[in-house]
């Protein structure tokens, strides 16, 4: 299947003249996923785990099937190692509160990479402050990569938690997760992988990576908004306290105390987003049908073409790894002398959607000496023509500003 065939499934991209290059923020949804969600609400909707009637049992089954599909997709050992959340941010907060807050002791260390999204950074600031533990960072080299020596220098005895994004949402850097996890385990730390920008784009195997926790959001991988995933090794999940308390996550409730349901229900309080889980399940079917290696191939081709065309423009500065082997389909750049916000407005007037700003990664941009960047991010429905339109819109940007500044 080619990206041209795939694009036909995305009504939003066919019903209007737009070039969508912001899939790193959220992906568009194919009609198969939208139909699956519709069908759920039309045929199977009820509150799971509640009623003894057929419809509720059906909703429970559908929810469970989605869990199994997610487990298989990332090669988890057990279906019950998958906890559904709202999104990666909630998954990371769950880990910070239910694991970090209890396990961290005074002077323990938490090590993050400087390229973490605020979602894998701000919770750790709070938790380390509360527990009097120490927050440290692994920094990047000039190509936006974390080197082996930086890994070995920062992940040392005393470090208890390592938080690392598999792919930078700003630079597109693919981080060496296996190496980081191995090092973390050698010093007795656990590793938390933010896979929000990787799971949608290439095969991720939690056991091959030896990740202790791994999180991602459904909406960046073709599924509806509001459904996310927390994967955790069963031994860890079993020994953690709940995150949210209330209905469904309980076993017996007495006036003064409660016993909790087993994992994963222990972490899923309240009525769950079954419609979202159905959408995620359908998105996984859609991606599996294409094949994750094919998904990767399509994006690699787009990345190479975009890099070639962008580097032909002498008024642009590109950030991130030069080696495209360590580079996912995310490119940050600036039009020299023009603020990214102005660039994205002018591109928008040409119907090209890109992101501008600090991409929820202020510490990374500050470290790089930048205030903000323009970012394009690809997915399976993008084409070379989209990139040509991006280039033309950038030339238009130059034209608008050339009268006023040296560009």
């Amino acid at each position, binding site marked *: 299947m080619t990206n041209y065939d795939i694009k036909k499934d995305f009504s939003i991209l066919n019903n209007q003249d737009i070039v969508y290059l912001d899939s790193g923020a959220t992906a568009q949804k194919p009609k198969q996923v939208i139909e699956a969600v519709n069908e759920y609400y039309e045929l199977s909707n009820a509150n799971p785990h509640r009623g003894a009637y057929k419809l509720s049992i059906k909703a429970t089954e559908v929810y469970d099937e989605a869990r199994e599909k997610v487990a298989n997709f990332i090669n988890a050992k057990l279906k019950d190692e998958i906890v559904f959340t709202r999104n990666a941010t909630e998954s990371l907060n769950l880990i910070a509160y239910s694991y970090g807050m209890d396990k961290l002791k005074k002077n323990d260390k938490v090590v993050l990479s400087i390229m973490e999204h605020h979602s894998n950074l701000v919770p750790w600031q709070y938790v380390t402050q509360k527990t009097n533990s120490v927050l440290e960072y692994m920094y990047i080299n000039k190509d936006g990569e974390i080197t082996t020596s930086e890994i070995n220098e920062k992940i040392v005895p005393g470090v208890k938690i390592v938080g690392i994004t598999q792919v930078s949402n700003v630079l597109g850097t693919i981080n060496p997760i296996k190496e980081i996890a191995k090092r973390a385990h050698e010093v007795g730390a656990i590793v938390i992988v933010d896979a929000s920008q990787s799971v949608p784009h290439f095969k991720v195997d939690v056991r091959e990576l030896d990740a202790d926790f791994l999180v991602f959001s459904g909406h960046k991988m073709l599924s509806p908004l509001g459904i996310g995933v927390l994967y955790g090794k069963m031994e860890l999940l079993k020994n953690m306290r709940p995150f949210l308390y209330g209905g469904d996550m309980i076993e017996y409730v007495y006036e003064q105390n409660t016993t909790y349901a087993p994992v994963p229900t222990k972490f899923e309080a309240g009525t769950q987003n079954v419609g979202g889980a159905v959408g995620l399940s359908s998105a996984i079917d859609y991606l599996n049908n294409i094949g994750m290696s094919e998904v990767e191939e399509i994006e690699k081709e787009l990345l190479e073409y975009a890099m070639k065309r962008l580097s032909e423009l002498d008024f642009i500065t590109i950030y991130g790894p030069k080696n495209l082997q360590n580079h996912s389909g995310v490119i940050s750049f600036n039009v020299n002398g023009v603020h990214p916000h102005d660039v994205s*407005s002018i591109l928008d007037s040409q119907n090209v959607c890109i992101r501008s700003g600090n991409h929820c990664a202020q510490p990374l941009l500050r470290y790089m000496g930048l205030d903000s960047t323009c970012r394009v991010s690809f997915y399976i429905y993008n084409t070379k023509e989209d990139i040509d339109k991006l280039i033309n819109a950038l030339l238009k940007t130059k034209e608008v500003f050339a009268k006023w500044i040296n560009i």
Partner: protein
Amino acid sequence: MDNLESIYTDVIMQHSTETYNKKKIDNPTAMEHGHNPSCGDDITLEIKMNNNVIEDLSFTGHGCAISQASTSIMIDLLKGKTKEEALELINIFIRMIKREKISEEELDKLEEARALQNISNMPARVKCAELAWYTMQKLIEK
């Protein structure tokens, strides 16, 4: 395209690239910092009051063409005005950007700042245009 040209007008582009208002002033009587966390626009206004009159006003910082131009245009407009006059002009400007009811007479008072009226049609950029004016309001009311 019409849309684009109504935003990136000569007045706005000129103000966003000229830097005569972008400086520090000697012995400011007060300062105020303004920030748009979503896009990173970040300015500091410095003011020198002489009794009730804005004797000098300047800014430093960084941001997009709209925010930089809006700041510079505002400085040109408010320098030499009294505190009350300045607050009234800020009020008119904010109402213009928010597309609230506004008279032709009031719009005239804004002079060059009228060039920013079309920003009100671009929700994504409204905050860029407003930043300096809200920051100034805080500064005066201090």
